[in-house]
Each structure stands twice: as C-alpha cells, then as structure tokens.
C-alpha cells in the first residue's frame, strides 16, 4: 500500500514551470531517496506534499496521502496533517529552531498543538522523544537553548520535533548538508533507525548520491522538475538507464586526470613553522583574566613548487583561520610564514612581489565579488600588484584570455556578476586568481557550494591549470573524496593542530591517527556503498 502517492503533479509559480508531471510513491517503512541538483525541484516537491507552497503557485495533478487527496484539503485540515501525520526536518538546524525557546519547550509545543495533553504530560513526552534521538536528559537537560548545542545536536532536536507525534511520513530536506562528516554519519544512522523501529516512511531529499547509497530502499532522480529515473536502489545504481543518472553518478565519483609531479626538495614555495593564531575569549567574570583560544596551535608544514596539498578537518578546526593567516589577512601570535623565502606578516606591508605569488579562491561564489563592478574590472583587480601591468587594449586582451582559460567567453567581460551561475562565478574567481600567474592558490572550500556535475568540471579545470602552469594549490575542504581526487599530499587538522600528514594515497589507504581513521570511515563513499550493498544482497540469496 502506498502511503504517499504523487501522480502527474505539476507546479507553476508565476508562469515558470517548476515541476512537470512528477510521479513518486512512498511505502510504509520505506526509505526513499530523492536526489537532484539545485533547482531540480526536489525541495518544492516536498513543500507541495506539505502544502506550504509560496503564493502565486498553480498546481495540477494529485498528491494522495493514505488514500486522501491532499491538494483538495483546506488549510485547517492540512494543519492537522502537518506535524501529526507528516513530519519535516530542515537543512539548517540553527534557523529551524526558535533561539528564544528551550529545546524541551519547543518539542513539547509541537506535541501540545496536536494533542490535548497537559503541559506536564507534554514535557514528559518531550523528554522521552529527546532521549530517543540521542539527547538524554541527564546530559542534555531540557532547559538548554539551541545556541548551547552543537550543529549535530540541534539537528537532533529538529528530528525530535518532527518525530514527536510519530508521524507516518517523515520528510528530511538535506538534513545533513550543513553538518560535518562524522556528525552526518550519526544523523543518518539515527534516521535509518527511526524508520526501522517506528515503521515510518522517510523521504530523504539530498544532492549527494553517496548519502543515500547506503540507506535508501528506493531512489528517484530529479532534474529540471521531472523525475527522470526511479526504482529500487540497488538495481538502479548497478544498472542505470537514464543518461542523467549516469552523468550524476560519474560526476559524484569523478577523479580528474593529473600528471603526477615529483616535487623537488629545493623548490620550497611556502614554509609555515610553529604558527599560532590565538583569540582572547570573553571574560568569565569582571576581574578574571581573559583566557586565550588557540584556533591554530603550532602548525608547521611546507608546500613545494607545483605540489597540490590538501587540508582537511571538521568545521571549526582552524582550517580557514590558517588560510587567512597565510594570506596575511590576520596577525599571528607566534611562528613564521615564509613565501618564496620572504616572511609574510600582517603587521608589515606585504610587498607586491609576494602578493603576486599567492592568490585565493573562496567558497561562496556569491559573496566573492563586488556586485557593482563588471567582470572585466573584477578579474583585473590583482593586476595592480604587477610593476608593469598592461593597460588599455593589452589589459582587455589579458582579461579576455584569462576568461577563456577558465572556460568562459571573452564577451563575458561586460557582464555583471549576478548574470552568472554559481559554477561560472567560481570560474571567474579562479580567473581573478590566475591573471597574475601566482605560484600558489589557496582554495578555501572552493568547490563545496557547487552541484556535483559543476564540481567535477571545476576540479578538471583546476587539475588542468596546475599541470599546465606548474601551479601549487593549498586545497582546503571538509570533503575527503574531493581532496583525495586532486591532491598529492594531505594535512589532517583537528582542533588547531595538524595530527597527521603524508602522501594522499598512502594516508587514505593506511591512516594512522585515530582522528584520520574516524574521518575516513565516516565519509560517505558512493562506490564503496554500492559494493557493500551488492555483497549483502549476494549473501542474502
């Protein structure tokens, strides 16, 4: 029996077709993965089920929940369904919780909206649910507020709110995208457990095939508002029919081809020795001494000419702080940074010759550009560190060439940044870094915000550039599969300290430090997951 059945459902918002004849079935006790890149309509599919569509939406087709036609229900009937029969978990655990309410009250509130419980009963029930999702009262009292919890714990509260009334369907919209790999694995385990033990149906929406590969019973692939392929997970993964599914799969496991470089011992480009970056913490009381938080605590490493080095670690481990210090953006409290045998420090003015040796590409393709300048000006920005920067026609020529080098067109120079997609913007960011031909580019989560197929293209571009121009990268990422694909050497960072470093392949195949092992085992791996499932399938037969 299908608990949820979406049939030929179409959605238009202000004359733009968002969903086009979507078909989707969800059975009791089943975990259904809905996969698509940004803009594919996967989130609006879930909002259609909740009937939480933006104003100006026109729909056709049918959505049946337990045999009832949802699209025909009124708002008050939908309110009964939401939370009670259909629960929802959101991507961003901080914004999905009310910061002024304790976690116990938030869960209890959800319960009291739908059931005639007394406040005390609701509190007791909330305590049970919170313990169920891994927040037992003795460790996490219900009087805690969201800001006192970590991201993973907040997401657990979000899950508790969604499952408090034991809904029959749980919709999770990118529930782990904002979380670290280790936390992601725990949350996915919890969701899987809830489905198995409570018999709920889970619609897990994600852009990441690897996330669902281990868990899902059925999978649907969405693109441009249509479900292009759908079916049981394992047959679908092993025998993909639609071209887009194949493309998505290969993009997710994409490894760019690179010439392997043998870095020469004397070609030292960057030397970091004993680097300390410390912040004073807030005073605990008026007269106490301010304690110091060491975000980067005695970090030493080297990057050689033409070498690609990865820096991995969880969010908050000090990766980006380290990058900022190397770039000379922040003062350091100890240690030295030498680039091409000249010291870098934020106190002194950094010479143009050093500036031209090092550039950066940031994560956010939207915030990285001044929205009021044209591309020609944005890309040409670093040129002023050149003593003989070209002017006039020559400058235009250089900007156009650099754009073509990163796969854009020379005509794009006259456009503004908002006319480009996320992937194109990241290409422009690379062009801006590249235009002065630096020796080192720091890539701070440079592909993390991109869809998998775009990410594969950008990784190819980076690999190609580094081969052709003997460029070094410091590739900072929380995504281990990406780091493994593009780097020669990896540094693993935990709480401001580099706990392990070594040749990429050696380190990934034989990690020594327990933290490295934990990171690697928690990271979802699409190929491995499919293999594992094939094995267990074989064993069962």
């Amino acid at each position, binding site marked *: 029996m299908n608990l949820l059945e979406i049939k030929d459902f179409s959605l238009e918002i202000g004359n733009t077709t968002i969903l086009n004849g979507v078909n989707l079935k969800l059975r009791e006790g089943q975990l259904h993965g809905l996969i698509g890149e940004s803009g594919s309509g996967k989130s609006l599919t879930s909002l259609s089920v909740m009937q939480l569509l933006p104003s100006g939406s026109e729909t056709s087709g049918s959505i049946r929940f337990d045999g009832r036609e949802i699209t025909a229900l009124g708002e008050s009937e939908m309110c009964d369904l939401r939370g009670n029969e259909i629960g929802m978990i959101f991507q961003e655990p901080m914004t999905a919780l009310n910061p002024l309410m304790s976690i116990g009250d938030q869960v209890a509130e959800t319960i009291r909206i739908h059931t005639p419980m007394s406040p005390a009963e609701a509190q007791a029930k909330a305590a049970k649910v919170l313990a169920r999702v891994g927040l037992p009262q003795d460790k996490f009292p219900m009087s805690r507020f969201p800001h006192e919890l970590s991201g993973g714990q907040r997401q657990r509260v979000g899950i508790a709110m969604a499952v408090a009334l034991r809904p029959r369907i749980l919709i999770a919209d990118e529930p782990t995208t904002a979380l670290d790999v280790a936390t992601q694995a725990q949350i996915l385990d919890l969701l899987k457990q809830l489905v198995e033990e409570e018999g709920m149906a889970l619609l897990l929406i994600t852009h990441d095939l690897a996330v669902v590969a281990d868990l899902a019973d059925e999978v649907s692939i969405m693109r441009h508002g249509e479900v292009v392929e759908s079916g049981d997970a394992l047959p679908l993964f092993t025998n993909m029919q639609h071209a887009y599914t194949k493309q998505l799969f290969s993009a997710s496991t994409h490894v760019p081809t690179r010439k392997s470089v043998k870095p020469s011992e004397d070609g030292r480009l960057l030397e970091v020795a004993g680097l300390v970056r410390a912040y004073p913490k807030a005073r605990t009381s008026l007269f106490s001494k301010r304690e110091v938080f060491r975000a980067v605590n005695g970090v030493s490493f080297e990057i050689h000419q033409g070498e690609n080095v990865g820096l991995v670690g969880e969010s908050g481990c000090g990766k980006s702080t380290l990058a900022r210090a190397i770039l000379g*953006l922040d003062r350091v409290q100890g240690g030295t940074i030498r680039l091409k045998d000249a010291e870098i420090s934020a106190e002194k003015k950094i010479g143009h010759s050093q500036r031209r040796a090092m550039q950066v590409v*940031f994560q956010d393709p939207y*915030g*990285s550009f*001044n929205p009021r300048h044209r591309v020609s000006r944005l890309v040409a920005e670093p040129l002023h*560190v050149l003593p003989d920067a070209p002017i006039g026609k020559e400058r235009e020529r250089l900007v156009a060439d650099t754009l073509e080098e990163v796969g854009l067109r020379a005509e794009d120079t006259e456009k503004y940044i*908002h006319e480009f997609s996320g992937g194109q913007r990241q290409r422009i*960011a690379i062009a801006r870094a590249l235009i002065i031909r630096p020796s080192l580019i720091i890539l701070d989560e440079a592909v993390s915000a991109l869809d998998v197929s775009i990410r594969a293209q950008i990784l190819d571009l980076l690999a190609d550039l580094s081969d052709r121009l003997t460029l070094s990268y410091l590739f900072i990422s929380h995504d281990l599969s990406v780091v493994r694909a593009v780097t020669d050497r990896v540094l693993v960072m935990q709480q401001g300290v580099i706990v392990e470093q070594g040749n990429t392949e050696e380190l990934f195949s034989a990690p020594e430090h327990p933290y490295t092992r934990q990171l690697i085992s928690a990271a979802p791996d699409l190929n491995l997951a499919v293999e594992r499932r094939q094995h267990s399938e074989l064993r069962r037969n």
Partner: protein
Amino acid sequence: MADRSFLAEMRRNPSLVIGFVLSSLFIVGAVISFIWTPFSVEDVDIANKLRQPDAEHWFGTDHFGRDIFSMILVGARISIAVALIAVGVGMVIGVPLGLAAAANRGSLLDEIIMRGNDLIFAFPSLVIAILITAVFSPTATNAIIAIGIFNIPVFARLSRGAALSLSSREFLLAARVAGKGPVRNSIEHILPNMTNLLIVQGTIQFSLGILAEAGLSYVGLGAQPPTPSWGRMLAESQTMFSFAPHLALFPGLAIILTVLGLNLLGDGLRDFFDPRIRRARQ
C-alpha cells in the same frame, strides 16, 4: 543609466513615482521662485490682508496681505537649501570619519571618532542648535551649521557599521589578497556598496533637516524676516488660527508633503539602485 530603464522602473515602483513627483514639485517650486513669483513676498498690502484662497491669491494672504503661495515657493528655497547643505556637511565629514574608524577598528583613532560621535549624540540637538544660532546671531548659515553638526555622527556610525559588515565579505578579502590597501578598498569597494544606505539615510536626514529648519525658524532662530520660511509662517499663524486657519494649513501641508515625498523617494531610489532587488522584481 538609460532613460528608458528609468521609466520602466518607475512603472513598477509606485513609491519612487509618488516620492519623485512630490519632491520635484517642491524643488521645481523653489527654482521657479528665483525668477518668478505671483506676487512679491516683501510687499505689504494691508488692504488685502487675511484673504481666503481665491483665483487671484491661490492660497490666500497673511496678516500683512502677502501672497501665501508666493511665500511657500520662496520658503521652499530656504528649507531645501538649509536641509540639503546640512546633509551634505554631515555626509562629507561623517562618511570619511566612519570609514577611517572601520579601517582602523579597535585603534585609538576608532575610539576617538566614535566616542566623539557619542558626545554629539548625547547633547539634545535642538538645544544646541538654539545655542549656536543664539550665540552667533540667527541666520540661515548658522542654522545650516547647527543642523549639519548633528548629521555628522549619523553618517559616521552608519558608514562604520556598513564598512565593518562589508569588510568580512569575501570580495574584500580577495581585494586585500590582491594587495589593495585600506584607503583604496574603502573608495573602490566599500563606498559603492553602501550608496543605497547613504541615499536612504540621506533622504531621511534631508527630511529631518527640513523639520529642524522649520523648528528653528518657528522659534525665530532660522532665516530672518523678511525672508519667508515655513516654520516662521506657522509660528505667526498660530494667534490667528481661529479665524484664518489657511495661514497654518498651507505651510503645514508643505512641510508634511516634502518630508513624505523625500522619504518615499529615498525608499524608491534604494530599490532602483540595487541591482539585486531590481533583478528579483523582474
């Protein structure tokens, strides 16, 4: 910016249209008053005093028989000039101070600038304005200085805050990595990205300036007679309010409509100049 896109934008943005029409009405009136007014505002005509509005005197006449419509036109000139220059003074001094404070965040310079701002903010503005105009003789110039001083901390705080929030944006980090110094970044990246804030705050301060000028002239410390001013017209009308309410009505309406128009205009301009909001609406 092409005129065509401006016209297209006008149709989509009613507050811009209304604000633009109201504000330009008074600005045009003020400009016209330089070359022509229906009657001279300095001629006393006792025979025609306190006339109700009619075809000859559109807004009626006051207790000296002067044409109120003409006085409103000339008064617009004073109000707009005083408020505009005062806002200009505030911006020209306040914005660089704020940017300098933001660029040297936490330094002694930052402290001096911002505590100085707090000091000015802590004084009741109208009292200080009265003090200044009373000490240095009540003229329009002194009114400008008095109102202008109180605009400085408004713009300094606004631009410091905006600059600080912009300075953590990645495009400013990228510019610093590209080797650009704080002065250059402030001019090239920060200032253009806070123009919409400055425009909105500028129009609000402009309207507050008009109110402040009216207040100063109301207590007799603005432009001196015989130069007409909206504030003084209101002050003079209050003893005759029971039998000649039109004396208060027209200058009062002029103040309200100008202030309203400027506020709407500021709002509309902010939307117009911001490429992101424009794109979202298209």
